[in-house]
């Protein structure tokens, strides 16, 4: 039995969650607003109307403030794979490192080169070169998202690799399989388009504030028409890819899927709990744990496997096994995982001492059981059940608020083209309050993706306990608080600066 340092694992996870969530406060706006700005500048260049330049520049200022802190919070994430998850870095570095390197070479340089022209080049380069730079900044930002999301998708659904027993690590076998895995495509599209929705909400919300204050009306109306069309278009893609993500998840991460639905007992014709409240002890009770729920019959079966009578396995089916459905229990998988680990150890010692036949026999056992490898590290089957409550609620927050934003886009777009935007105080207030809701939605999405896959760093192959670096818990605690305090201070600064700049409005755009 392994005596894991549980507090080290928890603090390392907490630090990663803290830095990732802080980073994600700033990234989605960058991904979306750069395109909105590029569209606005295109209109300016095509029409030559200086009002559009004023609009472009105002949103560029908002973007600049947001971008700086996004960069600040981003650098730490890349290095944390090494500092806090050193075993992980070796075990899958052969695959995982590549997208990070491509991200730097292909995307970050593009973004950082052309952003300088975008901000400082108005009077230095031609109009068309400036416009190209704005588009390239947007493309660069989104390309960087592509590569890091490919890396993340690979952790959720490892593919395109082989385990090399001699180097004791996974090695890439097919770059294209990693890049074009269905998980990667879904994840990329869902993440960027939902970020475009967030950016559209921010633009509509801020514009609504101007309308509420009855100032810069033309600026606000023009911003709203662009943002609502942009948001509406991408909301449709977000919903479509969300649906295919769920189907993909039911296939490759069925435990996450079951946790997301608080689905303990597998069944056919499984209903979907559209909304429900869980008992306070729901995470430990593991039985009927809803206080109340509203169900849609057969919907879960349909959502997972596109068929109303499909069997959707529950958390218990995985924990205790379900021979009828051919599902192994966690306990059985733990045994097989240990067999894989031990036979690899035997292989390595046998090879060293020249016992070829023992080495080959052990290798065969290892290969047969490799798909259970990561299960061998845990001490109890319960270690493989992710936090159900958090995943369940986060998913619902994401879906309901996402649906609400869709309606908001439709309505704003409709009144924009009918030119009936003015004089709707309650609508403006709703749009302003939607800004924090959009951030909550975006974070909730990542909670579903990341908390729902616990304890896996790499699905089925490496749990967090086997991935963590050998450092003192106290070191991680110190850096955790250091980051928490610094990032919070920077966030406060960012919000204060942002609000001040917004209040100044597009009229006084130059004053900084």
């Amino acid at each position: 039995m392994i005596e894991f340092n549980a507090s080290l694992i928890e603090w390392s996870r907490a630090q990663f969650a803290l830095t990732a969530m802080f980073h994600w406060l700033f990234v989605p706006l960058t991904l979306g607003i750069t395109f909105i700005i590029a569209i606005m500048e295109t209109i300016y260049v095509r029409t030559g109307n200086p009002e559009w330049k004023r609009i472009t520049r105002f949103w560029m200022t908002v973007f600049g403030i947001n971008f700086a802190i996004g960069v600040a919070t981003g650098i730490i994430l890349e290095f944390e794979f090494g500092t806090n998850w050193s075993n992980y870095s070796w075990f899958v570095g052969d695959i995982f490192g590549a997208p990070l390197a491509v991200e730097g070479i292909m995307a970050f340089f593009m973004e950082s080169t052309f952003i300088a022209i975008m901000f400082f080049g108005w009077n230095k380069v031609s109009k068309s070169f400036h416009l190209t730079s704005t588009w390239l900044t947007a493309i660069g930002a989104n390309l960087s998202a592509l590569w890091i999301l490919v890396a993340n998708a690979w952790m959720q659904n490892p593919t395109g690799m082989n385990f090399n027993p001699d180097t004791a690590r996974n090695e890439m076998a097919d770059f294209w399989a990693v890049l074009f895995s269905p998980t990667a495509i879904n994840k990329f599209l869902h993440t960027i388009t939902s970020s475009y929705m967030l950016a559209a909400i921010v633009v509509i919300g801020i514009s609504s504030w101007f309308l509420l204050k009855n100032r810069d009306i033309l600026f606000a109306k023009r911003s709203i028409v662009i943002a609502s069309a942009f948001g509406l278009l991408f909301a449709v893609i977000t919903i479509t890819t969300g649906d295919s993500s769920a189907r993909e998840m039911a296939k490759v991460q069925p435990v996450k899927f079951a946790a997301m639905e608080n689905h303990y007992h597998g069944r056919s014709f499984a209903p979907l709990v559209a909304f429900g409240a869980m008992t306070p002890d729901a995470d430990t009770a593991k039985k009927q744990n809803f206080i109340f729920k509203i169900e849609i019959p057969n919907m879960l079966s349909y959502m997972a496997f596109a068929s109303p009578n499909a069997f959707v396995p529950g958390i218990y089916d995985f924990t205790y096994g379900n021979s009828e459905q051919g599902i192994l229990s966690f306990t059985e998988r733990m045994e097989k995982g240990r067999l894989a680990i031990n036979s690899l150890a035997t292989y390595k010692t046998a090879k060293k001492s020249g016992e070829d036949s023992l080495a080959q026999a052990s290798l065969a056992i290892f290969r047969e059981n490799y798909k259970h490898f990561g299960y061998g590290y845990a001490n109890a089957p319960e270690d493989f059940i992710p936090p159900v409550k958090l995943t369940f609620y986060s998913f619902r927050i994401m879906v309901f608020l996402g649906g609400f934003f869709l309606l908001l886009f439709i309505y704003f777009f409709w009144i924009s083209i009918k030119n009936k935007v003015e004089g709707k105080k309650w609508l403006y207030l709703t749009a302003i309050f939607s800004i924090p809701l959009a951030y909550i939605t975006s974070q909730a999405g990542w909670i579903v993706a990341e908390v729902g896959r616990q304890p896996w760093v790499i699905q089925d192959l490496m749990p967090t306990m086997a991935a963590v670096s050998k450092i003192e818990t106290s070191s991680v605690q110190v850096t955790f608080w250091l980051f928490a305090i610094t990032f919070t201070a920077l966030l406060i600064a960012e919000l204060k600066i942002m609000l001040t700049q917004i209040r100044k409005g597009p009229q006084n755009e130059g004053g900084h």
Partner: protein
Amino acid sequence: MFETMSLETLQQYWWIIISLLGALLVFLMFVQGGQTLLYAIGKTETERKLIVNSLGRKWEFTFTTLVTFGGAFFASFPLFYSTSFGGAYWVWMAILFAFIIQAVSYEFRSKPNNFLGQRTYEIFLLTNGILGTILIGTAVGTFFTGSAFSVDKMNLLNLTGSSNAISAWEGPAHGLEAVLNFTNVALGLAVFFLSRVLGSLYLINTIEHDEILKRSRRQLLLNSVPFLVFFLYFLGAVLLKDGFAVNPATAEVTLEPYKYMNNFLSMPLMLVLFLAGVVLVLAGIGLSWLKDSRKGIWYAGSGTILTVWMLLLNVGFNNTAYYPAFDCSLETGSAASQAFMQSSLTIQNSSSSHYTLTAMSYVSLMVPFVLAYIWYAWKSMNNKRISEQELNEEHHTY
């Protein structure tokens, strides 16, 4: 084209790229050096604004190069990533922290209602300039002097202990102990003063302001002297010390007298380029000081790139362990010390697989293209020196 190359060739190719990225990073740390000169050269608010805006249009290149250096190192030599970052935790965290506070400082510094105040963001820039350069230099120093760590991949398969970590760092300082070795510190200080030299040269090149020009020249001279002292000390110490040699047949790591000097002598092209780099740095300083040239940054910059590039090639090529495992508390030459050294990282034992290096090599073909557009963008933004007048007319300033 890369598929047919041997694993060894690909490992060397990637060591060349990593070393080049490292060299570019040291050059680009003129931004950090310039930041440390903010108060020394900028005596008035306007002067400081000019300096910050001049550096502020380049800080992202340094930052991005650091991030790309990390990503490329991870992709090509993942065992280094796993061992050094996880082990020398405090050094890397301190370096990262210094860069986190830099990223926002330019954008937030002069904005109204910025919570921490302009002075704080300027102190952040100073801190980044001092800590970033010294710590990165000190950390790279350990490539020559060694660190106390061990690597055992069998730990991954250990189901009875308390940790599965394949890499373990000795001692509680987690990398900070590197400052106890003066050779490391000398490199740290050499990088620090070099960044100030380059920073002065950059300000001379890009700002149209008489006082800033005068003070930058003075700072150039003031920092060139300690730079040369620490650099020559480091160089002397490294060339004369025992180095970490790898037996190509058995992969055994041993201490070899004058290893780094021998590397230069057995790779004469590298030696020539190294010396050419040193001459170019001196020429950049000399021309700016004696001939009032304003193009010194280009000489000293390209010289810096050549010098650092060749130094890093020296420590990775010719059967050398680039990240040596060395415990100075063990008696040098003893069996224990000898055994300890076997965890050292070489470009052979720490690299990615043939497939990954091949795939990444195709990606590396983009690098000249990237450099070309950076060059083009730089040129179109810097065709005129930055002046007070320009800042007054500019919409977006720091």
